[in-house]
C-alpha cells in the first residue's frame, strides 16, 4: 500500500455508525452535515422511528466526555417508552435549528446545563411521540386512545389482546397532531432514566475511530499552524515571509485580520509548524508588555481596601463586628488558571463561492456557525457547521476564536484548511479563570455564635468582557458565585465586589465563580469554626438548619466520609460544601502529609444533590474527573504574567496529576427531587480545594490562603 498522500483518495470519515454492532454514534459525513443518518418516520425534531423499530434520538449538546449524548436520549426514551436497546443517537443539525425557528432551543453546552435546562422539552418530545404512536394504534384498531398502554416499544390493547410495535406505527403516528399537554412520570417510575446504560460514545473511544476536530479529513485539505501575539493585544509589526516561502510544503503565510496573529499554511501540519517556527515575526508589543504578575496582584490588593459594589448587605455588619467577642480576618488569593483541554484548539474550514463549511470541536456549534458567517462575510444560511467530538472543553470551547481564525485562513488560501494550535499556543492564549482575591471577616459572640460576616472579592470579571449586559450595579454572578448565595444563615453580613480587570483574557473555567470562591469561603468557614472551638461540620450544620437539602448533603457526607472517626498521626480529614449551577455538593477529603511536607490526597467522598439523576454512573465519573481536575489546579495550577505574556507554555510547567496521585473517589447522591434540576460537571468539583486544604490544616496546623499548593512549605513536626 502506498501512503494516502493524494488527498482526494482519502476516505470520508463517516465514523463508527457501524462501530460496535448496532448502537453507536452516527456522525454526519463531512460535507453532508444535513444528511441525517436516521431512517424512518419523524415524530418530531428529536425522534425518528424506523420500520425496523430503531429509534433515533437527536442530541443538541456537544459531547466532551460529560456523557450528555447518552443522558439526553435517556430522558427522551423514558417518556417515549421505547426499547432502549433499539435507541441510537445522532447530533442534531444546527442548520435545521436555524431554519426551523430554533427547534433545538440551544446548542450551548456549558454551565452544567445539558440536562438541567432541557429536561422539560426533552421529556415532552418523548411523551408527545408516545401519545402520537398511541393515536395511530387507536385509529387503526378503532378503539379509544384511553384504553391503550405502551411498553418497551409496543402499543398494547389489553381488552383485545393486540399489540403493535412502534416501528409498524411510526409512519401513521408521524401524521398525528401532537397533544398540547402531556404528563411526565415521577422519577420512581423511571426504567431508562435513572439507570446507567453503557454510554454511546465509549466504544469508538477505545480503538481510535472517534473523530475529534483534530481528526477531520476533507478532500483537498491543507494544514495551518498559527502564532498569536505573545503579549495580549500586541500587533504584528513585520513578517519575513521570504524566509519560509520555499520551505517544504509551504503554501502561504497568512496575516490574520487585526494583526494579532500570523499563520503558515502547508501541505502537512508538521511542515506548517516547522516553517512557522522558522518565520521571523516582529510585534509591536505596546504598553501591555510592561505588565507583570505583581502589577496585577497589587491592583487586586488595593481593591480589597476600596468600598466596591454592594452585592448583599443584611443587618448591621459594622456594628456587630465592632461588638464581637472574637474577630477573625483573612485574605485569600486564587491565580489565573488555564483549561488545558487535552485536545488543543483547532478548526477545519472551507470557504467556497456559495458559502462556508466548518468542522468544529466546540461547546456551542451555533456560536461556531455565527462566527464562521461573520468571518466569511456571509449570512448564516450560507454556513454548514459540523460538530465533532471534543477532546475536553471545561468552558474553553464555548469561545470561537479558533473558528474565526480558521475561516480567515481558509478564505485566504481558497482550500479546506485544518488549523491546529500547538500546545504552547493553547496554554498561552487561553481564556483564563480570573485571578481573584478575597478579604473575609467574621465576628463571634461570647457563646462563639457567628454574629457578623463579610466577604469582599477583588478580581477580574468574566462578564465585563463577554456579556457586559449581565454586569449590574458594578458586579456580576460569575465573579461572586459561591459567596453571597450560599445557604449559611448570616444575621449581619455584607458581600461586596471590586472589579479589577487586566489585559489578560478571562473566561468560564469549570465551576466558574465557585472555582475560586468555594475555596475561599469554605477555607475561611473552617478558620471561623476553629476560632469558635467547634467541629467544622457541626459549626456549619448550625448555620444551615433551615435548608433541608443542604442539611441532608452535609449529613450524608459526614456519615459516608467517616467524619469524626480517629485517624493516625500524619493523616487529616477536611470538609467543604458549596452550591453552584443548581446543585449542592459536599466533599470529605482525607490526606496524608509527610513531615517533610509532601501531600497525598488519599480519599474523597463526594455527596451531590442534583435534584434528579439521569445517569448515576456518569455522575460518579464526573465526580472522579472533577476531583482530578480540581486537584491538579490546587496542587500546581497557575498562569502567571511576565512582560505582558503568559509564562507557562506546556504540560511541563502547567502540570496535571498523574494516576499515582489520584485519590480514591466515592460518590453518593442525596436527591431532593421536586421541581428543581441541578447540574453535574461543575458543582461536583467545587468543594475539593477547600476540603483538601482544611484536611492539610488538620495535620500541619498550616492554613492555606493562596494557591497553588506547590508554593507552600507544609513541613510539620
Amino acid at each position, binding site marked *: 500500500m502506498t501512503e494516502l498522500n493524494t488527498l482526494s483518495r482519502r476516505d470520508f470519515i463517516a465514523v463508527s455508525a457501524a462501530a460496535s454492532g448496532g448502537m453507536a454514534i452516527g456522525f454526519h459525513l463531512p460535507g453532508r452535515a444535513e444528511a441525517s443518518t436516521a431512517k424512518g418516520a419523524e415524530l418530531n425534531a428529536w425522534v425518528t422511528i424506523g420500520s425496523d423499530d430503531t429509534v433515533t434520538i437527536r442530541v443538541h449538546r456537544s459531547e466532551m466526555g460529560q456523557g450528555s449524548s447518552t443522558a439526553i436520549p435517556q430522558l427522551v426514551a423514558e417518556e417515549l417508552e421505547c426499547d432502549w436497546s433499539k435507541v441510537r443517537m445522532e447530533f442534531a443539525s444546527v442548520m435545521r435549528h436555524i431554519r426551523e425557528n430554533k427547534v433545538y432551543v440551544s446548542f450551548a453546552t456549558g454551565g452544567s446545563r445539558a440536562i438541567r435546562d432541557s429536561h422539560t422539552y426533552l421529556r415532552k418530545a418523548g411523551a408527545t411521540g408516545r401519545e402520537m404512536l398511541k393515536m395511530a394504534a387507536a385509529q387503526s384498531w378503532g378503539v379509544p386512545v384511553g384504553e391503550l398502554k405502551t411498553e418497551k416499544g409496543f402499543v398494547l390493547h389489553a381488552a383485545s389482546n393486540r399489540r403493535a410495535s412502534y416501528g409498524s406505527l411510526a409512519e401513521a403516528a408521524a401524521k398525528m397532531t401532537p397533544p398540547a399537554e402531556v404528563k411526565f412520570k415521577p422519577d420512581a417510575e423511571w426504567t431508562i432514566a435513572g439507570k446507567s446504560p453503557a454510554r454511546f*460514545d465509549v466504544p469508538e473511544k477505545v480503538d*481510535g475511530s472517534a473523530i475529534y476536530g483534530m481528526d477531520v479529513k476533507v478532500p483537498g485539505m491543507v494544514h495551518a499552524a498559527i502564532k498569536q501575539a505573545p503579549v495580549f493585544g500586541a500587533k504584528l509589526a513585520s513578517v519575513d515571509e521570504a524566509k519560509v516561502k520555499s520551505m517544504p510544503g509551504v503554501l502561504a503565510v497568512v496575516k490574520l485580520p487585526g494583526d494579532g496573529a500570523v499563520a503558515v499554511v502547508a501541505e502537512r501540519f508538521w511542515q506548517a509548524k516547522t516553517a512557522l517556527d522558522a518565520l521571523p515575526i516582529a510585534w509591536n508589543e505596546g504598553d501591555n508588555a510592561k505588565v507583570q504578575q505583581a502589577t496585577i496582584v497589587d491592583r487586586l490588593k488595593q481593591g480589597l481596601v476600596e468600598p466596591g459594589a454592594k452585592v448583599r448587605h443584611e443587618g448591621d455588619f459594622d456594628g456587630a463586628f465592632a461588638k464581637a467577642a472574637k474577630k477573625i480576618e483573612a485574605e485569600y488569593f486564587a491565580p489565573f488558571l488555564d483549561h488545558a483541554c*487535552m485536545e488543543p484548539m483547532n478548526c477545519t474550514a472551507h470557504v467556497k463561492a456559495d458559502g462556508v463549511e466548518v468542522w468544529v470541536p466546540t461547546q456551542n456549534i451555533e456560536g461556531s456557525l455565527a462566527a464562521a458567517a461573520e468571518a466569511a462575510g456571509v449570512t448564516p444560511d450560507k454556513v454548514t457547521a459540523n460538530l465533532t467530538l471534543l477532546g475536553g472543553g471545561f468552558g474553553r470551547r464555548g469561545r470561537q476564536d479558533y473558528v474565526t481564525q480558521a475561516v480567515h485562513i481558509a478564505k485566504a488560501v481558497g482550500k479546506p484548511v485544518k488549523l491546529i494550535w500547538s500546545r504552547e499556543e493553547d496554554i498561552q492564549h487561553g481564556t483564563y479563570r480570573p485571578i481573584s482575591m478575597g478579604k473575609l471577616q467574621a465576628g463571634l459572640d461570647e457563646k462563639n455564635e457567628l454574629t457578623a460576616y463579610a466577604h469582599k472579592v477583588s478580581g477580574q470579571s468574566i462578564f465585563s468582557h463577554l456579556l457586559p449586559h449581565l454586569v449590574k450595579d458594578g458586579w456580576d454572578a460569575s465573579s461572586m458565585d459561591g459567596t453571597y448565595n450560599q445557604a449559611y444563615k448570616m444575621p449581619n453580613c455584607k458581600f461586596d465586589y471590586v472589579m479589577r480587570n487586566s489585559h489578560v483574557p478571562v473566561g468560564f473555567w469549570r465551576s466558574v465563580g465557585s472555582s475560586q470562591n468555594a475555596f475561599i469561603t469554605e477555607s475561611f468557614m473552617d478558620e471561623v469554626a476553629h476560632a469558635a472551638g467547634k467541629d467544622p461540620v457541626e459549626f456549619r450544620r448550625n448555620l444551615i438548619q433551615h435548608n433541608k437539602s443542604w442539611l441532608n448533603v452535609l449529613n450524608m457526607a459526614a456519615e459516608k466520609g467517616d467524619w469524626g472517626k480517629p485517624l493516625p498521626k500524619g493523616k487529616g480529614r477536611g470538609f467543604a460544601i458549596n452550591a453552584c449551577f443548581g446543585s449542592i455538593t459536599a466533599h470529605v477529603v482525607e490526606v496524608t502529609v509527610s513531615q517533610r511536607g509532601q501531600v497525598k490526597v488519599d480519599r474523597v467522598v463526594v455527596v451531590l444533590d442534583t435534584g434528579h439523576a439521569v445517569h448515576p454512573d456518569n455522575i460518579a465519573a464526573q465526580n472522579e474527573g472533577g476531583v*482530578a481536575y480540581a486537584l491538579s489546579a490546587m496542587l500546581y495550577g497557575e498562569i502567571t504574567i511576565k512582560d505582558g505574556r503568559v509564562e507557562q507554555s506546556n*504540560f511541563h510547567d502547567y502540570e496535571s496529576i498523574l494516576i*499515582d496521585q489520584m485519590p480514591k473517589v466515592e460518590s453518593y447522591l442525596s436527591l431532593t427531587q421536586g421541581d428543581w434540576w441541578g447540574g453535574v460537571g461543575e458543582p461536583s468539583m467545587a468543594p475539593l480545594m477547600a476540603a483538601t486544604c482544611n484536611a492539610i490544616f488538620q495535620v500541619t496546623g498550616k492554613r492555606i490562603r493562596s494557591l497553588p499548593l506547590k508554593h507552600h512549605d507544609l513541613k510539620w513536626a
Partner: protein
Amino acid sequence: MVAIKVNGTTHQVDAAPDTPLLWVLRDNLGLTGTKYGCGIAQCGACTVHIDGNPTRACATPLSAVGTSAVLTIEGLSKDKSHAVQKAWIAEQVPQCGFCQSGQIMAAVSLLEKTPKPTDADIDAAMTNICRCGTYQRVRVAIHRAAGNKA
C-alpha cells in the same frame, strides 16, 4: 520516500526524516487514533508501540523508526476485542477520550510485561495525562484486563 512498517503493513511515505512519527501516522497515513497533546513527550496522548515498547511518537523522528514495527491503536484489534479494550468498555473509562488511545497503548504494554500488575506497577508504568481525570477507572480497568480482583 521512506519505508515504515505500521500495524503489520509496510508503507512508503513522503516525509522529511526529522518529521515526528506522530505526524507521519496522522497526516501521511491517515491514522488519526494517535493524538497530539503536547509535542514534548509530556502527556502520552501519542503513545504507540515500537517493537513492543511504549513510545511517545511526538518525540520520535521518522528517521529513528527504521525497520522497527510500529503498532498504533488502530492495529490493536479489528473489533475492539483486545482484553484492554474490553475492560475499557466494561469500566466505561473514557470521558472525552482524547487521551485514551495513549492510555490503552501504555496499559497494553504494561500487561505484556507484567501480566498481574500491582497498584504500584500501574503507578510506575502509567504516566499519561488525562485532563478529564479518568485515572480511577483506568486503574480498575487494568486490573480487570489482568484478571485481577480490583
